[in-house]
């Protein structure tokens, strides 16, 4: 049973990551920085519970706030460029954040052992769930509580006028501007909300794996973040969820019996899925 709980936890966290890219993709911007906001949230929340002795909820909240602040700060300069240039700019930023954590030491003695991030060694012993006697099932439900919350919030967001404005910007920036939409404000706020979701997701991730290191937050994770909403479709938030289930449960776990062949098939099946459903599983505008 623990295997399924573990899988459900991974899927929940990847859904949050995908949702953080979903809202940015709605505005037509392709961001490769979501893994960086995820990392900021993971390290921040982990340090607050382990070193600061905070309870989990405020620590996750702080992770979300820091993720949002980072996204807002990087959004202002980065969103001045578009298309491929934005991809390159956010990619560079993401790598910068990863390398920062590669070199980030902040250890404090706790009893006989030292805890905290230790550069390339990573940050071990983020054991809030275990110390407080949470079972894997409980931790899984806790994570999915956030997933449901984030999906509900984005669903409502999508249906508000703000959601229509985001999609309008994604379709035609010049036309959106000409009807009075402030492009910078819209793009940066979408990025900020995405950063908050990624930050909370990162905080949850740190606590369920108990050990994080810079290599967890590489380009591959950033690619997954935008792949979910694109493969799933931008029609609504359920596309992202469907893509996470497809990738994590089917491609990664379901095909594990294929051994090394799985990795070959992985890419081929994603390509096949995109060819069969070019607008994503649930449809919607092309990203």
């Amino acid at each position, binding site marked *: 049973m623990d295997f399924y709980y573990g899988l459900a936890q991974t899927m929940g966290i990847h859904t949050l990551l995908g949702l953080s890219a979903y809202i940015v993709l709605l505005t037509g911007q392709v961001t490769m920085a979501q893994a960086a906001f995820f990392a900021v949230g993971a390290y921040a929340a982990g340090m607050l519970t382990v070193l600061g002795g905070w309870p989990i909820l405020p620590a996750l909240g702080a992770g979300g706030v820091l993720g949002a602040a980072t996204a807002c700060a990087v959004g202002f300069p980065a969103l001045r460029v578009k298309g491929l240039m934005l991809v390159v700019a956010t990619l560079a930023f993401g790598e910068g954040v990863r390398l920062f954590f590669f070199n980030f030491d902040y250890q404090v003695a706790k009893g006989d052992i030292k805890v905290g991030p230790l550069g390339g060694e990573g940050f071990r012993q983020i054991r809030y769930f275990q110390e407080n006697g949470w079972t894997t099932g409980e931790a899984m439900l806790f994570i999915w509580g956030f997933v449901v919350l984030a999906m509900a919030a984005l669903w409502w967001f999508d249906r*508000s*006028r*703000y959601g*229509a*404005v985001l*999609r*309008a910007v994604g*379709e*035609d920036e*010049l*036309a*959106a*501007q*000409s*009807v*009075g*939409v*402030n*492009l910078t404000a819209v793009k940066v706020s979408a990025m900020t909300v995405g950063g908050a979701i990624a930050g909370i997701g990162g905080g949850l991730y740190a606590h369920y794996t108990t050990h994080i290191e810079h290599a967890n937050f590489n380009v591959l994770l950033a690619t997954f973040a935008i792949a979910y909403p694109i493969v799933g479709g931008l029609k609504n938030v359920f596309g992202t969820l469907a893509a996470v289930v497809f990738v994590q449960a089917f491609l990664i776990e379901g095909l594990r019996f294929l051994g090394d062949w799985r990795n070959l098939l992985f890419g081929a099946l994603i390509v096949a899925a995109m060819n069969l459903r070019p607008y994503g599983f649930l449809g*919607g*505008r092309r990203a």
Partner: protein
Amino acid sequence: MLELRGLSRHFGGVKAIDGLDLEVRKGEIVGLIGPNGSGKSTTVNVIAGVFPPTAGKIVFEHQDLGSLPTHRRLQHGIARTFQNIRLFGQLSVWQNLWVAQNAPGERARRGFVARWLGGQTGVRAEIAELLEFSGLAHKQDELAANLAFGEQRRLELARALAARPKLLMLDEPAAGMNNEEIGQLRDRILKLRAHGITIVLIEHVMELVMGVTDRIAVLNFGQKIAEGTPAQIQADPLVRKAYLGGI
């Protein structure tokens, strides 16, 4: 109301507009005509703030617009439509008008949260009125991309009106329309003028331009070669030469 003083816009070596002076008075319909590539659309784009002028000034209601971005110019009351229709194709007709609810003072009048939710009666009534005006009420839930060409033109006009502009710039609104549609467009333009909206009309369909405008400015190679009433323009030898090539 609107004054262009020595306005120029160069793209590399190409002088799309070259020292243009033009005045548009309140309540007027001013036609802007000229051969293809004479700088008409560029003029609209510069006034709307899509790109800054290379030289010269744009003064709107005694205020130099300087380098204000497009969305701020809308707050001053300048709206426009596009030569090649630019709707939000994957949004419904209703949503296209919803997104455009950015009239000056809107923020103060309705408050941030109310605007955000936008479900309250004021906004709905205004959108309903725009739908009525453009004859699209029965299509309000269709995706804009699925509308017929003439309907898309009408929706674009309605979307530009959503901000309750003082000055409306129409960039070839009759392109691709049949005679019946042009007649309806003419009625709509006259209705807007009756509402006190000043209009700059770029158009190749001469019967429309000659029929509704008070004054016409003729551009050629980015310069104004003539200005006057429709009758004066029709009689102007320079204009005939620019259009027909030295006959």
